[in-house]
C-alpha cells in the first residue's frame, strides 16, 4: 500500500501511531513492509491456503464472534443433500461437467430452496456472477427453510466450512505457502485477539489478490474470515479493495465493462432478456434493495433516451445491446488475431506494455484495420507499428502492417472538470486548472462530439439499427470556445432528476413509471439540493470523525456499508468503543455516526409479512441488505463459477504440484491456449522459478505518465529484477548487472538488484525462488526498457476474466538477451525443452 497508494498509506501510519498493529503479507519486502510491525513472506499464488489456515484456526479454536455469525451470516443454513465438497471429490465440487468444463451449481443450493435457473448465462458462457450484477444470486422468495441455529447439523454451512478447511492446518500452510508455522500462528492469533465486540481488524488488498486465476476466491476467503470474526459493517473493520488507479472504482460504477450497466445492473443477455419484463423477472431479487432494480433500470433508460423512452416502448429497453457471450478484452484480442475484430478504441490504456502477453497484443493490433489511441503522450500502443520488439525480431514488418493508427491527444485531469471515485466509494470533484494545450481534448468532449457527429451523419435514417443512436438524449450544455460539455451537468444527470425537474436526493426516490431519470442509481443524490455534493471540502478538523461533508460517498453518502452489523440483533452497539449506528427506540429509527444502511424505521424486531417486497422483505436483523436473505454468505450457493467455498488450487504456472488435491488448478479456469499464448507446464524444470509482477511508487502503470517525465524517470531509470542473494548465486547474477528472464511467451532483459528482501521459500520440502519484476517499462519515453508483461500468459479467473499476473513461472539467465531473430529462438528453445520434460501429475482436463 505504501508503494502504490502512498497518500492513502498516511492513514495506516496514523493508525499505527494510535496503537494499531500492521501486518504485511507479501512475497516481497516492500516499502509497506518497512513500516509494518510484521512482514510475512508468502509464496505468490498460495494465499487461499494461508487464509484458509486462518479460517481453520478460528473454527477449530472456537474463536468466531458467535452471536454475529449466528445472526448475521448464513452459517445456520442447511445445504442441499446432494452437495459434495472438494474433500469428497479430490478437488472438485459436485456438479462439474467435464464435457463443458463448467459447474452446474444446483447441488450447492440451500436445502429446499432452489436457485433460479439461469439459462441465459449457460448459453452465452457468461459467468454467473456477471449475470446478477452485484445483487448476489437469486434465491426463491423468503428465508431458507432449513436452519440449525445451534450450528451443529452436518450439512449446515458452519459445519461444511469446518470440514472444508480442516486440512488447512498450520503445517499445511508452512508446506504450501512457505510461511513458518510460528509466524502463521502469530498472524492468526493477532487477528482473533483483535476482533470481537471491543476491537475490529481490517484487511486491505490490491492487485496482489485480484490478478489470479482464483482471485475472486481469495477475496471470498477474506470475506469469510471477516464474517466469522464479526468485522464487516463495523468501524475499523471490513475489507478494503485498493484499486489499480485513481478512478477505477468510478469506471466500474459507471462502467467501462462490457457486462455491466451503471450501478452494477447486468447488461441484458440475448436469449434470456429479450424484453424488459424478462430482464426484470430474471434480475430482480425477491428481497433486499435489489428488489427495486426496476426503478433503477427504467430511470437509467430515461437518462439515456430522454423523452423517447416511454412505457409503451419498454422505455427503449430494446435499444440496449445484448450479450451473446464473453465480450471481454481477451476474446476481443483473439478476435483481432483471428481477423474478425477490425477496429479498436484505446483510451488511456497501453496494452503494448500493460496487458498480459503484451507481445500478443501488439501482434493483434497489427492485424487491425484501424486503431484510435487517445492519450497524453505517444504510448507504445500508438507506435508499435514502427518500434515494437517484434519489429526488432522480424516477427512484424512495418511495411506489412495494415493498421491505420490515429493518435488523438487527450487532456490531463488538471485540464478538465470531473470526479474521481476512490476505493471508499468517495466521489471527489476536481476542477479544471488550465486549458488543455493545442488539440488536446477531454474524454467528455471527445465522446460528446463524436456522438454528435455520428448522429448528424445518421440523421433521417430509417434503418432500425440506427435508432438507438438517434434516440439518445444528447443535449448537454457546452461551454467556451472548445464547446466543452459541462461535466457538472453530466454529474447532475447521473445523480438523477425527478418528475419536477429537480435533482433527486437518493435512489429511494426512483420510480419505475418513467417519471424519474437517473444515470446511476447508486450515485443518486450526488447532486441533492442542486449542490454538487462531490465538491464539498469541509476540513476533517471541522466535523465528526466520519467526516461526511468531505466529498460524497455512494450510496446516500453512506461511509460504511452494511453498518447495521455494527449493532447487535437488538439494535444496541456491540460495545461503547465500537458504537457506530444503533436503534433509537424513542424515535423509532436508526441513528448514529453514519447514514444507517438499513430501512430507516425498520425495527430490530421487525419480521416481514409474506407479501413484503424488496428491502421490506428482510427482517430487522439482516444487515446484508443487497442479498436476498439479508445475510453475509459464508457459503455462496450461487453467483460464482468456481465453487461455493474457496479452495487452494495452484496457479496454472506453478513450480509445485498441488499437495491438497489431485486437481492441480482451478477447474473452471479460462484458458486461451493458442500459438503465441502457450503455457509453462507445472513443476517444470525449464521454468523452475516463480516470478511476480508489481508496481513501484515512482512509476505509474504502463509508464505513459511517468517514464515521460524527467523528475520521475530519474528516480527509477531502468527496468530491473529483484532476486535473493541465493538465486543470484545459483544463476550467476551480479548486483547492477543484467539478467534475462524467459517464459513460454517471451524473453526480456532487466538490470539486477540483489536484495535480502526477496527470500527463497521452503515449499513442499524444497526451495522455491521468486523473482520480482516491476511492470512499468516499455520502449518509449525517457526511462526505457523491456516490458515485464511480455512474459505473462493470458489465463483468467472465470468470474471476472482477470488474468494471472502475480504467480507465474520463468527461467532466469545471466546477461543481456539476444537481439533480433535469436530472441525468438531462445524462447522457442526453452519451450521445446519444457515439452520434452516429463512434468508432474495434475488432473487438468
Amino acid at each position: 500500500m505504501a508503494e502504490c497508494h502512498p497518500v492513502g498509506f498516511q492513514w495506516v501510519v496514523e493508525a499505527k501511531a494510535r496503537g494499531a498493529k500492521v501486518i504485511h503479507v507479501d512475497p516481497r519486502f516492500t516499502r509497506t513492509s518497512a513500516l509494518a510491525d510484521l512482514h510475512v513472506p508468502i509464496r505468490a499464488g498460495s494465499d487461499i491456503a494461508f487464509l484458509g489456515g486462518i479460517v481453520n484456526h478460528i473454527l477449530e479454536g472456537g474463536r468466531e464472534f458467535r452471536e454475529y455469525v449466528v445472526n448475521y451470516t448464513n452459517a445456520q443454513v442447511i445445504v442441499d443433500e446432494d452437495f459434495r465438497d472438494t474433500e469428497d471429490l479430490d478437488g472438485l465440487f459436485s456438479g462439474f461437467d467435464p464435457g463443458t468444463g463448467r459447474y452446474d451449481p444446483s447441488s450447492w443450493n440451500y436445502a429446499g430452496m432452489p436457485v433460479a435457473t439461469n439459462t441465459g448465462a449457460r448459453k452465452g458462457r457468461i459467468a454467473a456472477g456477471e449475470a446478477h450484477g452485484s445483487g448476489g444470486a437469486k434465491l426463491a422468495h423468503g428465508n431458507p427453510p432449513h436452519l440449525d441455529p445451534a450450528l451443529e447439523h452436518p450439512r449446515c454451512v458452519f459445519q461444511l466450512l469446518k470440514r472444508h478447511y480442516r486440512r488447512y492446518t498450520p503445517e499445511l500452510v508452512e508446506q504450501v505457502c512457505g510461511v513458518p508455522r510460528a509466524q502463521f500462528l502469530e498472524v492468526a492469533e493477532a487477528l482473533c485477539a483483535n476482533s470481537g465486540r471491543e476491537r475490529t481488524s481490517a484487511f486491505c488488498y490490491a492487485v496482489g489478490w485480484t490478478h489470479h486465476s482464483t482471485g475472486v476466491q481469495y477475496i471470498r476467503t477474506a470475506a469469510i474470515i471477516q464474517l466469522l470474526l464479526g468485522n464487516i459493517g463495523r468501524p475499523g473493520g471490513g475489507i478494503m479493495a485498493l484499486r489499480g488507479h485513481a478512478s477505477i472504482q468510478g469506471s466500474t460504477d459507471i462502467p467501462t465493462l462490457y457486462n455491466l450497466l451503471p450501478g452494477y445492473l447486468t447488461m441484458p443477455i440475448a436469449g434470456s432478456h429479450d424484453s424488459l419484463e424478462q430482464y426484470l423477472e430474471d434480475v430482480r431479487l425477491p428481497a433486499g434493495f435489489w428488489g427495486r432494480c426496476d426503478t433503477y433500470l427504467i430511470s437509467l433508460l430515461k437518462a439515456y433516451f430522454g423523452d423517447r423512452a416511454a412505457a409503451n416502448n419498454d422505455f427503449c429497453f430494446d435499444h440496449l445491446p445484448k450479450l451473446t457471450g464473453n465480450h471481454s478484452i481477451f476474446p476481443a484480442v483473439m478476435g483481432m488475431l483471428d481477423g474478425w475484430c477490425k477496429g479498436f478504441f484505446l483510451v488511456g490504456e497501453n496494452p503494448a506494455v500493460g496487458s498480459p502477453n503484451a507481445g500478443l497484443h501488439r501482434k493483434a493490433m497489427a492485424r487491425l484495420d484501424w486503431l484510435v489511441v487517445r492519450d497524453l503522450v505517444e504510448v507504445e500502443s500508438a507506435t508499435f507499428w514502427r518500434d515494437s520488439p517484434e519489429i526488432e525480431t522480424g516477427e512484424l514488418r512495418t511495411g506489412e502492417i495494415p493498421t491505420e493508427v490515429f493518435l488523438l491527444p487527450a487532456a490531463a485531469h488538471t485540464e478538465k472538470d470531473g470526479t474521481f471515485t476512490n476505493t471508499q466509494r468517495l466521489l471527489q470533484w476536481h476542477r479544471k486548472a488550465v486549458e488543455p494545450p493545442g488539440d488536446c481534448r477531454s474524454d467528455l468532449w471527445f465522446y460528446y462530439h463524436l456522438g454528435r457527429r455520428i448522429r448528424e451523419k445518421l440523421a433521417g435514417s430509417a434503418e432500425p439499427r440506427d435508432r438507438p443512436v438517434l434516440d439518445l438524449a444528447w443535449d448537454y450544455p457546452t461551454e467556451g470556445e472548445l464547446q466543452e460539455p459541462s461535466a457538472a451537468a453530466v454529474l447532475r444527470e447521473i445523480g438523477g432528476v425527478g418528475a419536477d425537474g429537480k435533482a433527486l436526493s437518493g435512489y429511494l426516490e426512483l420510480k419505475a413509471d418513467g417519471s424519474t431519470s437517473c444515470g446511476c442509481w447508486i450515485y443518486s443524490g450526488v447532486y441533492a439540493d442542486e449542490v454538487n455534493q462531490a465538491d464539498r471540502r469541509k476540513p476533517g478538523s471541522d466535523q465528526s470523525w466520519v467526516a461526511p461533508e468531505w466529498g460524497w460517498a455512494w450510496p446516500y453518502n453512506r461511509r460504511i456499508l452494511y453498518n447495521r452489523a455494527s449493532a447487535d440483533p437488538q439494535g444496541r452497539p456491540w460495545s461503547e468503543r465500537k458504537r457506530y449506528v444503533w436503534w433509537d427506540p424513542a424515535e423509532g429509527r436508526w441513528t448514529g455516526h453514519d447514514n444507517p444502511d438499513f430501512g430507516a424505521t425498520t425495527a430490530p424486531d421487525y419480521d416481514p409479512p409474506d407479501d413484503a417486497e424488496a428491502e421490506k422483505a428482510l427482517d430487522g436483523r439482516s444487515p446484508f441488505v443487497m442479498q436476498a436473505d439479508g445475510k453475509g454468505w459464508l457459503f455462496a450457493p450461487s453467483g460464482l463459477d468456481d465453487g461455493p467455498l474457496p479452495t487452494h488450487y495452484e496457479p496454472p504456472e506453478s513450480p509445485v504440484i498441488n499437495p491438497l488435491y489431485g486437481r492441480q488448478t482451478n477447474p473452471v479456469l479460462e484458458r486461451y491456449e493458442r500459438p503465441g499464448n502457450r503455457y509453462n507446464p507445472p513443476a517444470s524444470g525449464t521454468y523452475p522459478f516463480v516470478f511476480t509482477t508489481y508496481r513501484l511508487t515512482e512509476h505509474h502503470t504502463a509508464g505513459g505518465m511517468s517514464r515521460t517525465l524527467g523528475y520521475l524517470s530519474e528516480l527509477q531509470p531502468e527496468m530491473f529484477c529483484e532476486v535473493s542473494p541465493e538465486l543470484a548465486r545459483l544463476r550467476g547474477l551480479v548486483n547492477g548487472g543484467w539478467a534475462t528472464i524467459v517464459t513460454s511467451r517471451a524473453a526480456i532483459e532487466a538490470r539486477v538488484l540483489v536484495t535480502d528482501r526477496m527470500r527463497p521459500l521452503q515449499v513442499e520440502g524444497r526451495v522455491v525462488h521468486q523473482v520480482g519484476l516491476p511492470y512499468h517499462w516499455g520502449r518509449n519515453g525517457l526511462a526505457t526498457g523491456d516490458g515485464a508483461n511480455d512474459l505473462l500468459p493470458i489465463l483468467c479467473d472465470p468470474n471476472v476474466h482477470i488474468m494471472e499476473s502475480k504467480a507465474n513461472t520463468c527461467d532466469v539467465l545471466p546477461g543481456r538477451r539476444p537481439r533480433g531473430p535469436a530472441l525468438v529462438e531462445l524462447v522457442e528453445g526453452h519451450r521445446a525443452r519444457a515439452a520434452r520434460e516429463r512434468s508432474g501429475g495434475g488432473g487438468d482436463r
Partner: protein
Amino acid sequence: MTAGPRMGFFTDTSVCIGCKACEVACKEWNMVPQDGPLRLSGTSYDNTGALGASTWRHVAFVEQQRDDQGLRWLMSSDVCKHCSSAACLEVCPTGALFRTEFGTVVVQADVCNGCGYCVPACPFGVIDRREDDGRAFKCTLCYDRLRDGLEPACAKACPTDSIQFGELDELHERARRRVDSLHEAGVADARLYLEDEGDGIGGAGAFFLLLDEPEVYGLPPDPVSTTRDLPTLWRAAALAAGTLAVAVAAAFAGGRR
C-alpha cells in the same frame, strides 16, 4: 527586517515510506534540473545517490539483515541542515550565502560567482556547484514560500508527515516526545540527530530522528563546523608568515655572497 522565530525541519525517518514525493515536489517548485544520466545505481531503491546542486532532497535506502530482529529497511529524506554554525556561509567570500529572517541559510544566485569554496567546507557534503551553470546551489528551505506564509514544498507533499516544518523550538519538543514514545514502544535504536545545540554545528535548522547511527545513512557522526577551529588556523598562519619573514631576514645575515 525583524527576525521572527527560527523555522526549520524535523524529519522523522521512522515514518518515512520512501515515496520520494519530497524529491519531486522540491524539484518542481524550485525548477531544479535533472541530476545526471538516467542510470540504475544498484544501491537499493536509491537512484538519486546524494544531495547536490541539482538534488536538494535525497531519500536514502538502507537494507539491513539483523539476526535477532529480521529484515529492516531504513528510509530517510536527507536535506541541507541549515546549520546554526554554517561553514558554507562563513567561508563564502562574496556574501552570496546569508542567513534569512527565518534562520535559514540561502544562496543568492545573483551574487554567487562560483568560487566553490562552500563545497568542501560543508561537513555534510550538501552544497555543490552546478557544472553547466557555474554557481553553487542548495536547499533554500523554500524561502519564497516562507515569505508568503506557506510551508516548504517537500513538507507539504510528504504524505506521512515524516517531514515536519515549523518553529524550531516546537519541533524540538515534538521530536523529544516522539523519541520517548518510540523507546517506550521498544524501538531502542531511535535517536535524534543534530537536535543538540551544543554539538559541532550549534544544532541544525533541519534535524532528524534516525533509527541507526548517522553514518549508516551517509551522515557524519560528529560533524563540526570548520569555523570552530578558525582561531587556531589563523594563529598558525600568522606564525608561519612570521617564520617566512624571519627566514628571509636570516638569508641576508650571511651577506651578499
